[in-house]
């Protein structure tokens, strides 16, 4: 244990290390104070630098060109990802077939692999991911999906509105109609 040396070397009559009996020691052990000091320092070091929120840049296409852009994209290279309540994720490649045979269900963990597989199988200039959040999807779902674009190194992606046809298949899979959507009578 460290000790503060307050003794004087020249004044001892009885030799080193010999203390007079019944005299109270005036030595104060300062190790705990130094420990506390360092604890407080580390606390302040960590609180000054750690709380920086980060920014995720989002670039949107102009609305007027959207129709042309959607038809220019080669359908075979497009991967559409839909999201709705309870963190449900659905996807299909290319265009949605009327009988819904290519409508598949997934979740946030597996979608990373789906994106990766599609990316590997498509030419870079044809590969585009279309993200369609449904009316019950949370903001977190949308940001997580945008983050997946970043993680998967997807260069082209678009955030577009969900179509009634997509909503129909979601309603069929979830069993509950999405908010604000009424399924048409004829199927």
């Amino acid at each position, binding site marked *: 244990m*460290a*000790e*503060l040396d307050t003794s004087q070397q020249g004044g001892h009559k009885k030799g080193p290390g010999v203390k007079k009996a019944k005299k109270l020691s005036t030595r104060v052990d*300062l190790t705990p*104070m*130094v420990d506390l*000091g*360092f604890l*407080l*320092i580390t606390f*302040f*070091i960590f*609180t*000054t630098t750690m*709380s*920086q*929120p*980060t*920014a*995720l*840049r*989002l*670039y*949107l*296409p*102009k*609305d007027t060109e959207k129709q042309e852009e959607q038809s220019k994209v080669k359908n075979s290279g497009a991967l559409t990802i839909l999201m709705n309540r309870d963190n449900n994720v659905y996807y299909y490649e290319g265009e949605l077939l009327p009988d819904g045979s290519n409508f598949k269900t997934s979740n946030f963990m597996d979608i*990373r692999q789906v994106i*990766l597989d599609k*990316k590997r199988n498509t030419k870079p200039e044809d590969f585009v991911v279309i993200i369609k*959040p*449904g*009316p*019950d*999807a*949370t*903001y*977190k*779902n*949308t*940001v*997580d999906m*945008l*983050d997946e674009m*970043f*993680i*998967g*190194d997807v260069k082209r992606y678009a*955030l577009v*509105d969900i179509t009634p046809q997509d909503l129909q298949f979601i309603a069929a899979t979830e069993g509950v109609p999405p*908010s604000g959507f009424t399924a048409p009578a004829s199927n």
Partner: protein
Amino acid sequence: MTAMCDVAFLLLAFFILTTKFKPDEALSVTTPKSVSTRTLEGKDIVLITMDKDGKVYFSVDDMNRPEKLQIIEEVNEMKALNLTDAEKAAFARNGSFVGVPFSQLKSYLQRDPSEIKNLQQPGIPVTDSLNNELQVWIRAALTAFQGKKMNILLKGDNEAKYPSFKGVIDALKKNEQFKFSLVTDPEGIPPDSELGRRAAREGASVTDQ
């Protein structure tokens, strides 16, 4: 040993003095996480907040007081609200934000700051595409910031539903603002992903976008 003690307290004093406390936010929002490491813009910020119920709030950086005054002037003219100078000054106050429709704006600006902290505001209406009030606010902000680059920050709660987000995006698109930043918390890059592999090759700056 005394010397070490002195050094320890000197360092401690240094860090105490250089700690900047975050300004007290009236709205508590849990932002989602992302792997981006790009830091937020520091000035000329227009902040749009979405809380967990999807309510939208609009505020401007405290450093831009002249722009704030101009914004409230524009809104007053455009919507014929007949705001008094005191109410306009209340808007330009530090830390102020708006979360009410235009119809309630006058009475909202008359309130005390301590009242506002406990007030449950209805939020700026954005979901109705015909009456997207945020669009008006953004247009006023654009006029106020004329010539200078305005940094739009979108801070949303995890639980906010997509329709509010879409309303905010539409308001921005109609004002020709296509570039903005989403405020997120930092998160580590998953190592076994494309980005993870790129990071291993090129270094950590790959997430700075």
